[in-house]
């Protein structure tokens, strides 16, 4: 346990000073890794913990990004102030679409979420309600400011995204190790037994779906602020696939696994730019090998620790 903390401490320290030694391009790569890590963690609640196959997570990301873009460009509200609004709209959107479909199992739910993602992307492309800017999207989103300091360069965004990622890890770690976290695991393991043990399974499915979507909405806000331009093509099916693969490959239900997944899926392709043509081939092969030799992911979920009294651990009779 202490060894683990030591390793995390070293990684944290290296990442904290890394931008000082990197050019803006590589810092931007790390920013993307961070953003996908946040998205991966939010999807991990739904896919990894609750076992609900969601292949349309980019839709909630998009709802958050567009909420930020529209409210910022039309009303000039600072983007960081819009975080709760983005969480709310993405969460609400998830609640509305999930309500009728959440009882679907496995692949059926998967197909419907793909549909939802595509419908949203096409609606955005067709300038729905005349406020999404059509295929060109929305531009001119203002830079975020923190206490008067304008976040502009990749180096600045690095610390903003890093801070958001740290908060996400901290809160999700606590959420995992709680009544809520256990409840969603129960329904992943055996829905009938969960219901039979007194867990309101439909409530928890909906709750975890909405929570994951709301978090993706907040990531969308940061994304919009970082890019200053957003367009429907940033939220296509491929994005959902990447998020899904990060969770499955990295380790379903495991925070370190998802973080590693984000590094592998978003960071490595940049390191191996020279082999860009072979990227899909390598990903595909890696995916196939993983599914055969290590279905639970590279860093799988570990059993939760509980503060058991010593006497009980020893199993001695009084």
């Amino acid at each position: 346990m202490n060894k683990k903390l030591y390793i995390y401490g070293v990684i944290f320290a290296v990442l904290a000073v890394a931008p000082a030694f990197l050019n803006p391009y590589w810092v931007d790569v790390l920013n993307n890794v961070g953003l996908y890590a946040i998205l991966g963690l939010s999807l991990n609640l739904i896919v990894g913990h609750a076992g609900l196959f969601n292949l349309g997570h980019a839709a909630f990301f998009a709802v958050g990004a567009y909420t930020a873009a529209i409210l910022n460009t039309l009303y000039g509200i600072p983007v960081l102030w819009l975080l709760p609004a983005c969480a709310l709209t993405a969460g609400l959107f998830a609640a509305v679409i999930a309500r009728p479909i959440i009882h679907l199992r496995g692949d059926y739910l998967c197909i419907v979420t793909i549909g939802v993602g595509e419908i949203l992307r096409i609606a955005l492309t067709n300038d729905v309600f005349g406020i999404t800017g059509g295929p060109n999207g929305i531009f001119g989103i203002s830079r975020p400011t923190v206490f008067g300091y304008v976040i502009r360069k990749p180096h600045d965004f690095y610390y903003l995204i890093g801070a958001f990622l740290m908060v996400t890890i901290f809160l999700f770690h606590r959420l995992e190790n709680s009544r809520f976290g256990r409840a969603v695991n129960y329904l992943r393991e055996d829905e009938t037994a969960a219901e039979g043990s007194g867990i309101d399974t439909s409530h928890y499915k909906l709750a975890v779906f909405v929570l994951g979507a709301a978090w993706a909405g907040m990531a969308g806000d940061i994304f919009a602020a970082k890019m200053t331009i957003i367009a429907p093509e940033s939220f296509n099916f491929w994005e959902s696939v990447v998020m899904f693969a990060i969770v499955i490959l990295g380790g379903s239900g495991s925070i370190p696994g998802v973080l590693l997944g984000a590094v592998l899926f978003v960071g490595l392709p940049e390191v191996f730019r020279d082999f860009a043509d072979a990227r899909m081939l390598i990903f595909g092969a890696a995916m196939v090998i993983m599914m055969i030799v290590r279905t639970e992911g590279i860093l799988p979920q570990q059993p939760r620790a509980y503060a058991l009294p010593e006497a009980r651990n020893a199993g001695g009779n009084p």
Partner: protein
Amino acid sequence: MSLLGLQNLTKSFGGLMAVNEVSFDVEQGTIVGLIGPNGAGKTTVFNLITGNHRSDRGTIRFEGKDITNWLTHRIVRLGIARTFQTIRLFQNLTVIENVLAGCHCRMNSGSIPAMLRTPGERREEREALARALDDLAFVGLQGQEMQLAKNLSYGSQRLLEIARALASEPRLVILDEPAGGMNGQETEALIGTIRRIQQRGITTLLIEHDMSLVMKACEKIVVLEYGTKIAEGPPEAIQGDPKVIEAYLGMED
């Protein structure tokens, strides 16, 4: 007033009448056995009581309250817990977490208190853990808290299901073939456990094929055949009942 009362409970699957006009009462504090040949509709009766199936007709009352066709988790919260005929544990989770599943409905903290680790949430977690450990020890599985459920022996898995059911602090516990797959020694121990459940003031309704267990443990027995109740009474009366003998052994020519 009886703890649980079934009146004219009926359920058919397509053309098959699985449960047909079944009525019986379970008195507070007793151990009642539900027996019958395979396919008699025993498990269907259990599934109707716990809300896994919706009944076609008839009512189910628990402590005077009509709970017919309630959602399962609400029924558990009201005080009826069950185990399953085919073991349904959370196989990839630890033993202690399986028991904590039962504690869930007696806790209140949601996602936000969990993320903030409020004092109330911490206290609730501590209390639930203590209760879960007590119930594990009650069925004799102390010391195996951190094992994965799937690594337990068959008999231990059955006991773990009982511990999970007890953790929900039920007033009625429904056991579906608790001795299934157990050896003679384990079955003897199980009878002791069922009696100790009774001493805790919890009423038990069980399905069992092991007649030695049923005759020893149960104060009342209800017999089903082809979805219909054919007999009801104390073990001695049931053993001598010609209709029951006929159902189990067939009729003489």
